[in-house]
């Protein structure tokens, strides 16, 4: 799924557009707890979309560590300028939608995004 499709489907607004824009995203992962996010360590090199309600800088840092190119913030929260700047510096695209997390996930799943491959441990 192209980033443009994600924006259309979730009626998202672009907070930060520096980054790899021409990627085809196949998987998504939604979590508010960063430790839970760290659990997806896929062996595949497919780009993953991170859906989260956290607006702190830690969401960007998590994305950097996990090589996640796009972060989608849900519930229309105001994202602090510091977070956006950090994302800009590290080439991580940031989007924001007004839908709640459940609806966001549902809409994207319906459009064909799959859950990020995780390892049962």
């Amino acid at each position, binding site marked *: 799924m192209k980033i443009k499709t994600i924006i259309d489907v979730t009626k998202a607004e672009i907070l930060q557009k520096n980054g790899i824009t021409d990627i085809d995203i196949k998987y998504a992962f939604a979590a*508010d*707890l*960063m*430790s*839970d996010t*760290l*659990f997806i*360590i896929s*062996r595949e*090199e497919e780009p993953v979309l991170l859906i*989260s309600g*956290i607006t*702190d*800088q*830690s*969401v960007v*840092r*998590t994305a*950097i*560590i*996990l*090589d996640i190119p796009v972060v989608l913030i849900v519930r229309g929260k105001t994202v602090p300028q510091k977070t956006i700047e950090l994302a800009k510096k590290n080439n991580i695209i940031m989007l924001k939608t007004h839908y709640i997390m459940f609806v966001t996930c549902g809409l994207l799943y319906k459009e064909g995004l799959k859950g990020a491959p995780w390892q049962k*441990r």
Partner: protein
Amino acid sequence: MAKKIKIFQFPIRGADFEHIGNVTIETRKLIKISFTEEECFKNESFVGSRDFLRRFGICAYEAEANVIIHAYYGLFKTILCCKRIKGEVIDRGPGIPSILNALTPGFSTASETAKSLGFGAGVGLNNIQKIADFTMLHSEKGKGTSLQFEVWKAKDNEIRRTAMKIKQIIKALKLELVTKNVDMEKEVKSAYSCDLLSNVLAKAEDESAWLTVQTNMNIIGVATIKKIPIIIISENSTIPKQAIAKAEENGIIIAKGNEDTFTISGKLYELFQKE
């Protein structure tokens, strides 16, 4: 060729929630630079292996977050050598009151501030333990904690393997199914060939297929412990009825083939590669 070891060291301040993750990101950058620019690391086949770097990153992030959430100050030391990366986090702080509790998923003593930032889910140490290839935790109440973890170079063939359904394997290898009423939809990612039970217990990967000529009752016990879903018996050995009954009871599939272990192993290896 001369061996080289690189050591990076960063201080971490306790309760510095604003910069949580910075040390990890800096360390990661340095490792990446070492991998791409320095001769002695370049020759190693893991260069560019993002999985390797990511696994280290996750462990480092969790360890760093632990220091920021719980301790007063700490030191993060990374030792990078050709085949492994070692992380060492030593802190001065209250220590862990109960290590057993701390290792239980979901248990957390993190403050509300930490929780509001998405940390303190109580899975940190557990995550490190699962992802790293080696972990050592030492804590003294009232003094501090030291955590060491290592991430080893992944074997190339481990990365390439993908899961295969058991029924596909049985079909492709033309095996004869011995057990009845068992779940054929289970998946396996690798296989292990050995007749010595203790070797299987020690070395076989959990949830992999097992190839052997042994047909006594004990193989079922071993398979149950190692969560092996399928035992492939080679050279058409006869399997005692009790073993079959016990396998069915435990939901383990037994299939047998005419060829010897070497031939079946070879075919199975090809199957995993092809997928």
